[in-house]
Every structure is written in structure tokens, then in C-alpha cells.
């Protein structure tokens, strides 16, 4: 019993409250109202997903036909009836050399997803084999004080996702460690607020691309002697700088707008400055700070793609760009796979933040 309560709480924290109705459905404790709620919270989303897939499928098919007709007509005009028939037969046979290249259908995207996973399996096996082969040699090299040999093959899709997550996480931490303390100082001191206001107003709307270029200029010079790949450093710093503004503004606002009653309490109890900040001001501005952090995380994940692309950092952004440049038969489907993966991870990150917020803050926030 206890476990199911905590499970219910956790699922509610994650914004997956409909799971409890689902549980009631199986345990038979379902009233009429519960059933309505179940319909609304479970069946309706599923139906809308199916509708979405249906429209997507039809649209993809229509676009496919437009492209195919164009190819056949072109063959007819340029090379005559025989070539057109040959082209039509080729397209109908499903041969990859003459497939029309347009919006992929849901089935193609699913196929690409599976092929990406297979690819990951192959690369992982390859890596493991490489590690085994070089284990003895590497041990010797380390003993001699030399660098071990590392695997330099191409990364799999999963490796790229992990790389992107690392970049976002590092960028988010950078934003957190800059924006929260700075926001607190700005919120506490009207002088600092006046000093920083122009700075925030001007730099907040700057585009991720420009941030990347700025960071590139600086980091390139700082790491001029280093032979190491600086793409990770550059991309996580750019992501952090792009995304920290929401947290900075929200923290400053939260700190400067603490309820006057609480400040009076702090005064009457004669709390010291340190105590006042940590016992009164910070807890009362936590909801706003977390709102800022949530925006920061989602902005970080959003600008990541553009920044990885520019920085040539081997994550999801670079994956999308390379597939687009690649122009292979299944490239479009892989791009759509990446789109869904990016969306779903973004959603999960948002839920994770909500979960953390609800476990540390005194105001409970519902998922939107």
C-alpha cells in the first residue's frame, strides 16, 4: 500500500497523473467520474496522436506522389516513353536508387529509428572489440607514461545523444552558477541593478549564433597552445551564455519582490544578513528562480542544435546537419527521428525540473 502511494506521488510529480486512473481501471475501483477523467486524460491524447500520424501519413503520401509524377514526366520529356516507363517501374519496385525524396512517412521514420539503433549495436560491439584488442598495449603505454590509444571511429546515434546531453548539462550548470548568484546580488542591491540593467537588456535578445561566434573568438585565443578539440568547451559555454538570461532576470525579480511581511519578520527577529538571505529571501524566491531555471533548460536544449552545428561538436545538432548534407535515401527520415528524439528529451528534461522544483520548493506547481 505504502509503495503505491509513493508511486502515485511520483507519477503526479512527473505530471503523469493519468497513470493513477489507469491503475484504478485495472484494480476495478473506477467510478463514473474517474472514467470520464480517464477518457479525457488517456484516450483523448492517444486518439490525437493517432490522428496526427494519420494526417502525416496522408501528407507524406501526397508529397511522394507529386515527386514521383514529376520524375516520370521529366523522363518522358527528356528521354521518351520507354525511359518514363522504366522510371515508373523503378519507383514502383522500391529500388533505392530512384526513390522520390520528400517528407518521409511515419513507417519510414520508424524504420530509420530501428536502423539507427542497429547501427548503435554494431558500433558498440566494434568499440568493445577495439578495447579488448588494445587493452594489453594500452596498459604498457600507460606504464611507460604514454597516452593510451583511443577509439576514433564514428560515433553512433546514441553516442551523439549522450554528447548533446553532456553539452546541455554543462551549459546549464554554467548558467546556474553565473545567473543565480548574480541574480541574488542584483535583486538585493538597487545600485547593482542599475549597473547591470543595460547589460541584461542588451545581451538578452542576442542570437545563439552570435554568442557562439563571440565564445569562439575568445576560447580560440585562450586555447591557442592546446591541440585538443575545443568544440565541446565552445559549445557548452555558448549554450550557457545563451540560456542564462531567464534565470538571471527571474532570480533578481524573485529576490527583490519578497513579501514585505517576511522582511518585517526578519527585522523584528533581528536576523543577520546571512540568515536573512538564506532563511527568508531565498526560500521565498525559490518558485521564481525555478521558473527561470526551467526556461533556461528548455532554451539551452533548443539552441544546442544550432550551436553544435556551428561548433562541429559531434552531438545531435551535427547529426541533423550531416544528414541534411548527406542527402542519402534515408537522410530525411533520420532527420525526423532526430526531431522526435530532441522533442522527447526536451519534454523529459522539463519534467525533471518540475520534479526537482516540487521537492525543494514550498509552492507546488502543476505540469502544464
Amino acid at each position: 500500500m505504502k509503495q503505491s502511494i509513493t508511486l502515485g506521488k511520483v507519477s503526479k510529480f512527473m505530471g503523469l497523473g493519468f497513470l493513477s486512473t489507469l491503475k484504478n481501471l485495472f484494480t476495478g475501483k473506477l467510478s463514473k467520474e474517474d472514467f470520464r477523467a480517464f477518457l479525457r486524460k488517456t484516450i483523448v491524447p492517444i486518439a490525437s496522436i493517432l490522428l496526427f500520424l494519420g494526417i502525416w501519413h496522408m501528407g507524406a503520401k501526397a508529397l511522394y506522389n507529386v515527386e514521383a509524377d514529376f520524375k516520370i514526366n521529366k523522363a518522358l520529356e527528356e528521354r521518351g516513353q520507354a525511359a518514363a516507363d522504366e522510371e515508373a517501374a523503378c519507383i514502383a519496385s522500391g529500388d533505392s536508387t530512384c526513390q522520390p525524396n520528400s517528407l518521409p512517412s511515419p513507417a519510414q521514420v520508424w524504420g530509420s529509428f530501428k536502423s539507427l539503433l542497429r547501427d548503435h549495436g554494431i558500433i558498440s560491439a566494434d568499440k568493445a572489440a577495439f578495447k579488448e584488442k588494445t587493452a594489453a598495449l594500452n596498459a604498457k603505454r600507460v606504464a611507460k607514461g604514454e597516452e593510451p590509444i583511443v577509439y576514433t571511429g564514428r560515433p553512433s546515434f546514441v553516442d551523439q545523444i549522450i554528447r548533446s546531453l553532456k553539452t546541455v548539462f554543462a551549459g546549464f550548470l554554467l548558467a546556474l552558477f553565473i545567473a543565480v548568484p548574480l541574480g541574488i546580488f542584483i535583486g538585493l542591491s538597487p545600485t547593482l541593478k542599475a549597473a547591470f540593467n543595460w547589460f541584461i537588456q542588451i545581451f538578452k535578445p542576442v542570437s545563439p549564433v552570435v554568442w557562439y561566434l563571440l565564445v569562439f573568438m575568445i576560447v580560440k585565443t585562450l586555447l591557442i597552445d592546446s591541440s585538443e578539440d575545443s568544440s565541446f568547451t565552445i559549445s557548452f559555454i555558448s549554450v550557457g551564455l545563451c540560456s542564462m538570461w531567464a534565470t538571471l532576470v527571474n532570480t533578481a525579480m524573485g529576490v527583490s519582490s519578497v513579501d514585505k511581511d517576511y522582511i518585517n519578520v526578519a527585522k523584528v527577529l533581528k536576523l543577520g544578513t546571512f540568515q536573512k538571505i538564506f532563511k527568508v529571501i531565498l526560500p521565498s524566491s525559490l518558485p521564481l528562480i525555478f521558473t527561470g531555471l526551467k526556461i533556461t533548460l528548455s532554451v539551452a536544449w533548443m539552441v544546442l542544435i544550432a550551436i553544435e552545428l556551428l561548433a562541429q561538436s559531434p552531438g545531435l545538432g551535427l547529426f541533423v546537419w550531416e544528414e541534411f548534407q548527406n542527402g542519402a535515401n534515408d537522410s530525411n527520415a533520420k532527420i525526423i527521428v532526430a526531431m522526435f528524439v530532441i522533442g522527447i528529451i526536451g519534454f523529459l528534461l522539463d519534467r525533471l525540473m518540475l520534479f526537482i522544483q516540487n521537492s525543494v520548493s514550498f509552492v507546488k506547481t502543476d505540469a502544464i
Partner: protein
Amino acid sequence: MAYLELNNVHKTYIEGGEEVLSNINLSIEEGEFVAIVGFTGSGKTTLVNLINGLLEPTRGEVLFKGQPVVGTSHERGVIFQNYSLLPWLTVEQNVLMAVKEAFPKKSKAELKSIVADYVDMVKLTPAINKRPKELSGGMRQRVAVARALAMKPEMIIMDEPLGALDALTRGDLQDEILNIWGKDKRTALLITNDVDEGIYMADRIIPLRPGPKATLGPEFKIDLERPRDKTEMNDNPSYKKTRNAIIEYLMDIGNERKAEALTPIELPDLAPKSFVGQL
């Protein structure tokens, strides 16, 4: 020299602006229970904040034990109108925070036992680990009472402490506050808008004439034996007389105010033009 003294205190919020309080003179003796009764918006909270040190007078002086009041002090405990509990702390933590500040040298165990005593005194031991959100209005105000008293102040200043409570809870809490006050006879100042509450609890009642330029009216002594009984009090001729006198006084002030508001304002002459024949 009185325990607490206000001499010709004036207060304006904006420099050169209208006076919220004007020429306030008040003196309270040690161990006395004084109630100040006034309409809402008459400057009661401003007066309280001058005494507890959150505000400074524009002119005049506020003396506590002969010394001018500068800033807040643990010697004067405050119970706020809207409880002002910190919502992210439990009952225990809310009280502990105050106790820790008042007795920085005591060990953690000693502090905790002080907190437990005072929470018990306001009958909230079962709710000690709850947060303010989970408590009713009356319980929240009890926590605020415990927090103010646990610091062992020499004087308790109460700013409409029971204003937001229903009549029954109010009566209960009045008795509790009187009980606690009676135990070690601290000096108490109660600000209220309820004449009966003032008569039931205080030794003296002083009406506050409403602001702007609020000032204190003549005091009324309450010569009733303690402990007082609410039902018996109703039949006491001296109670009836005092109560009528205070209410009459307040009504007069109210009427004066209304009369002021009713001084005829000359309306602009807005007779419509005649459009006949112009259309």
C-alpha cells in the same frame, strides 16, 4: 518615568506630505495592558511600527525604558495582523528561528525544549511538524503568539492579532493571551477595532481618532476585577457605562468624519445645450 513613552510623535511617509499621525502622546507603565481602539485606516499599524522600531517618527520621540527606540529589539515582541509565518517552515522551525536569535548562546537541545514549551502553551503540540498552510487561521495566529512569546520579550505589541478570526476562535484566543499575560505580567499593547475585545482584555482603552492627522483621544479606565468573565461582565453597570461612553465617543468621531465628507461640493454647471431645431 513611564515604561514606554511617546512624546509629540508625528509621522509623514512622504517628505512634506500629509501627516498620518499627528501629536501622539502616550505613556504605558510596566505590567500594564493597554488597548488602542480605532477605525480601519486610522493609522494603527503605523503607530505599532513606530513603537516596535520598524519605522522612525518624523518628529517627536519614542522612548522605551527611557531610551529612544532605534530599530527593532528582542525586548519588544510583535504579533502581526496577518500572522506573517514563513510558509516554507514548520511550526517548530518558525518558532525555533525566533528563539535561536533571541538566545544565541543556548544549546540546540535547550532551544528545542523552549520551543516545545511555548508550542504546548498555545496547545499546538500535535501540529508541531505541520506547515502554516495546513493550519486554520486560529492555529496560525497561535503559532505567531508562540513565536513572539518564546523570545521572552519584556513587552508584547499586538497589531489586530485576532482581526481575521471568527468570533468563537477570537474568544478562545483572547483568553489564552490573557492567561499567558497574567502568568508573568508583561507589559502589553493591543491594537484592535473591537471595543468589547479592548474592554475584556485591557486596563486602559485609548481611542485613536482616524487619520490623516490621527491622534489619540481621551483614555478610558476599565475598573473590572481580573479574571474577567464575559457573561458576568454584561450585567456589570460599570462595564455598561464604560462601553457606552467609548462607543459614543467613537460614533461622534465617525459622525464628524461623515459631516466633513458631506460638506457640499460645488458642482459644475453642466446644463445641456438646447439642440432643438439644430438637427
